[in-house]
């Protein structure tokens, strides 16, 4: 087992990892940029090193400096959290070449699943349904037109290296397809230095359902059930929950098993998430694998009772999974709300500043994962997410009532947050009845 781990991240996930390590008797080395100097969570690590100025490119994304801190901190492993370098296969490679374990999947699995086209190939090998499409990069416009005819319009043009909606275009007919291909390709070249694009059937008003998996180095892979993340705004998840409401049990079983098959086929280990879209007839299609712990992992922790961060560390240290698929129980309903420092009245732009007053919700079934406190200053350099409010109750109805109660209690002053939007979402009949899809939030609020 590791004696000492470097936490290559900041904010709430750094705190989450530090907490897990301390309970496991593992020492932690934190790294921080000048913008995070003095943050309370750093004092909970056993050691903390400043690695650069506030800009992430000069600190949290500086592989050299992080490895250097790992070396002077004398750690055996690095936990990358999510974001920053978490899905950077090169970083994983450098860590391991320095004899520092990267707490995550093998580099090859990261690379293969990181590329959308090779990920589709793996899915096909595993017998996992993908959205009908070009099965590879578009090399010729006429080919694209023929494929679009065969799968039927509307079609989606996507960048192979893309993400977050960039390099993505919907084409409703041949004319817009021809125009869109060139535009998407150029955009992708600019954004990702990779002009490769491919075609997919455009699924209207889909739900986003993802499956949490974890595997060890001995071929054991289990799923920890699904999460629904259809409540999104500009491809940013706002609310995540488990179980996925209204998903028929047999669909749920199939989708979870597909995820296990897929990551097994990829030779994937450690924690990961298979993302699917689900159409209104409950057909589901594989989208991508997130090869890291996710923001919304507490949802799964609360319904399964399994500590995912600890399991990540154990698996990375070479331990076998302590459970089989049959041991994993799902009970109750957990819902997570991301609390962002954004100004809802100004296009949800970031709202950095000092929290001058903070009254947190609490009580039975309530967990608030956050590194902030009254007096904490949210810096403008990083993600606007300042915390995750997660509730777990026996039923979805009770979880929603609990969340509403928490939102009533929650006071944050000094910065603008998404709490007003959250109140609206949790009061909306279509959310309560779960008549939602990934376009719901943008259509409605």
């Amino acid at each position, binding site marked *: 087992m590791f004696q000492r781990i470097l936490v290559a991240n900041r904010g709430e996930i750094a705190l989450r990892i530090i907490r897990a390590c301390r309970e496991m008797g593992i020492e932690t080395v*934190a*790294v*921080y940029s*000048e*913008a995070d*100097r*003095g*943050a309370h969570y*750093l*004092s*909970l*690590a*056993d*050691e*903390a*090193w*400043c*690695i*650069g*100025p*506030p800009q992430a490119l000069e*600190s949290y994304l500086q592989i*050299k*400096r992080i*490895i*250097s*801190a790992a*070396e*002077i*901190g004398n750690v055996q492993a690095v936990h990358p959290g999510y974001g920053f370098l978490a899905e950077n296969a090169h970083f994983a490679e450098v860590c391991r070449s*320095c004899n520092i374990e990267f707490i995550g999947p093998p580099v090859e699995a990261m690379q293969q699943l990181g590329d959308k086209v090779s990920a589709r190939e793996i899915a096909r090998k595993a017998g996992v349904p993908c959205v009908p499409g070009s099965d590879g990069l578009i090399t010729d416009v006429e080919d694209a037109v023929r494929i679009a005819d065969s799968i039927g319009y509307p079609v989606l043009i996507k960048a192979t290296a893309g993400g977050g909606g960039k390099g993505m275009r919907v084409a409703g007919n041949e004319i817009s397809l021809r125009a869109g291909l060139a535009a998407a390709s150029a955009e992708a070249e600019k954004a990702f230095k990779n002009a490769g694009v491919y075609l997919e059937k455009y699924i209207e008003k889909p739900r986003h359902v993802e499956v949490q998996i974890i595997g060890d180095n001995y071929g054991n892979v289990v799923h920890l059930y699904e999460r629904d993340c259809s409540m999104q705004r500009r491809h940013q998840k706002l609310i995540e929950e488990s179980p996925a409401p209204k998903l028929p049990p047999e669909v749920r079983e199939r989708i979870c098993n597909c995820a296990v098959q897929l990551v097994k086929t990829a030779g994937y280990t450690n924690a990961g998430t298979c993302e699917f879209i689900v159409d209104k007839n409950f057909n589901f299609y594989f989208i991508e694998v997130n090869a890291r712990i996710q923001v919304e992992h507490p949802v799964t922790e609360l319904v399964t009772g399994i500590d995912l961060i600890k399991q990540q560390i154990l698996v990375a240290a070479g331990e076998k999974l302590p459970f089989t698929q049959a041991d994993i129980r799902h009970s109750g309903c957990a819902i997570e709300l991301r609390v962002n420092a954004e100004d809802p009245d100004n296009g949800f732009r970031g709202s950095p500043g*000092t929290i*001058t007053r903070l009254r947190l919700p609490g009580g039975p079934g309530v967990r608030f994962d956050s590194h902030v406190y009254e*007096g*904490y*200053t949210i*810096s403008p350099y990083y993600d606007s997410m300042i915390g995750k409010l997660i509730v777990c109750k026996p039923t979805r109805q009770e979880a929603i009532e609990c969340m509403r109660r928490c939102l009533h209690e929650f006071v944050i002053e000094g910065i603008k947050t998404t709490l007003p939007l959250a109140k609206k979402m949790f009061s909306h009949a279509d959310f309560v009845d779960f008549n939602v899809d990934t376009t719901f939030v943008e259509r409605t609020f």
Partner: protein
Amino acid sequence: MAKPVETEPKRKAFDLDDFRKLLQLMEKYGVSEVSLSNEDESWKVRRGPRQVAYAPALPEFAPVAAAPAAPAVAAPAAPAAAAPAAAPAAAPAGILITAPTVGTFYAAPSPEDPPFVSVGTVVKPDTVVCIIEAMKVFNQIQGEKAGRIVEILVQSGDAVGFGQPLFRLEPA
């Protein structure tokens, strides 16, 4: 406390004369926030427009990165606490050369060699002042400041964090 509120001699009050002195010091040295406490009392003062609680911390006055030996519990707190206290009393005059990267500090090219610089050495911005080893690479560091070295703040072999002061200079 000291200054008696004359009518209630045994009542423990706050000494506002001391408080005034503190404010004068704060004003004089441009201190925006002070937190003082001893067994009996704790004073906390903030001046000027509402300040950032965790100031990206005047790096010049926040020299100590987490010391490798001591648990970091104290370390990250230290800069914030140290900053205002240091201002009136111990604020080291002069110019600081700080670490441009995290790594291991070496004063000399090799254990056999003399150090790049010593107290009294006059350096120019392009003078190599030390080596910082990061990822097995020995980076020669130019001081990027000019002056005469009056204090060397770390030992050869110490781990140093980004921004950590290494040398204090006085203008040559």
